[in-house]
């Protein structure tokens, strides 16, 4: 399931809902991304996430479908917020459920790695010197690329 929204989400309720009643599930792996109050050596007081409605959902669905092709998954979930967020706020939740632990753990890492380089979101960080667009990180490209090997 894919959701793109401004509202926060209840992690416990979301993980329960994705696994409830499916007793073939042996493990649920999840990753929650949150807003840090620092970027490099610069203080961050808030950030605004912009995205490309339509393409976002299309790309997230493609990433989810790829994960389901690579691993035997019982359930997958991606929730990504946009709009203005403050330090400590949740940005994203990805979760995968499988009969097998390694499938859940690996596919969860895959989802967040691919999401970071494919989903059309952009972060505008607010700090002491005003607002600045976050630059993409080569580490993120490398993290996504390792799944191509």
């Amino acid at each position, binding site marked *: 399931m894919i959701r793109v929204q401004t509202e926060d989400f209840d992690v416990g309720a979301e993980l329960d809902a994705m696994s409830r009643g499916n007793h073939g599930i042996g493990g649920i792996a999840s990753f929650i991304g949150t807003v840090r109050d620092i970027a490099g050596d610069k203080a961050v007081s808030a950030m605004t996430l912009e995205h490309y409605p339509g393409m976002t959902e299309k790309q997230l669905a493609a990433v989810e479908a790829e994960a389901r092709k690579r691993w035997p998954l019982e359930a997958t979930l991606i929730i990504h917020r946009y709009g203005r967020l403050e330090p400590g706020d949740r940005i*994203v939740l990805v979760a995968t459920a499988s009969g097998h632990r390694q499938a859940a753990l690996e596919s969860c890492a895959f989802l967040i790695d691919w999401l970071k380089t494919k989903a059309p979101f952009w972060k*505008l960080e607010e700090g002491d010197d005003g607002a600045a667009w976050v630059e993409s990180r080569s580490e*993120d490209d490398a993290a996504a690329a390792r799944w191509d090997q």
Partner: protein
Amino acid sequence: MKLLYFAWLRQRIGMAEEDVTLPSDISTVGDMLEWLRRRSDKHAEALADLSVVRVAVNQDYARSGDPVGDGDEVALFPPVTGG
């Protein structure tokens, strides 16, 4: 053609979207970018370094040699930074 701009490309070009008529002799993403650069000084400045410009045609990533036509939805944006 519907053009969409995001993040600092939107800010530098000064608009979120515009409708343009693509000349009939332009059929690839690369040629379209060269043509767009000549639309205004702001376009030229925003598209000066194409290594930091990503292109989507009909909401899928496209490269310089990929085809593009006047009926497409084309988006220009910087490398993504979500998650």
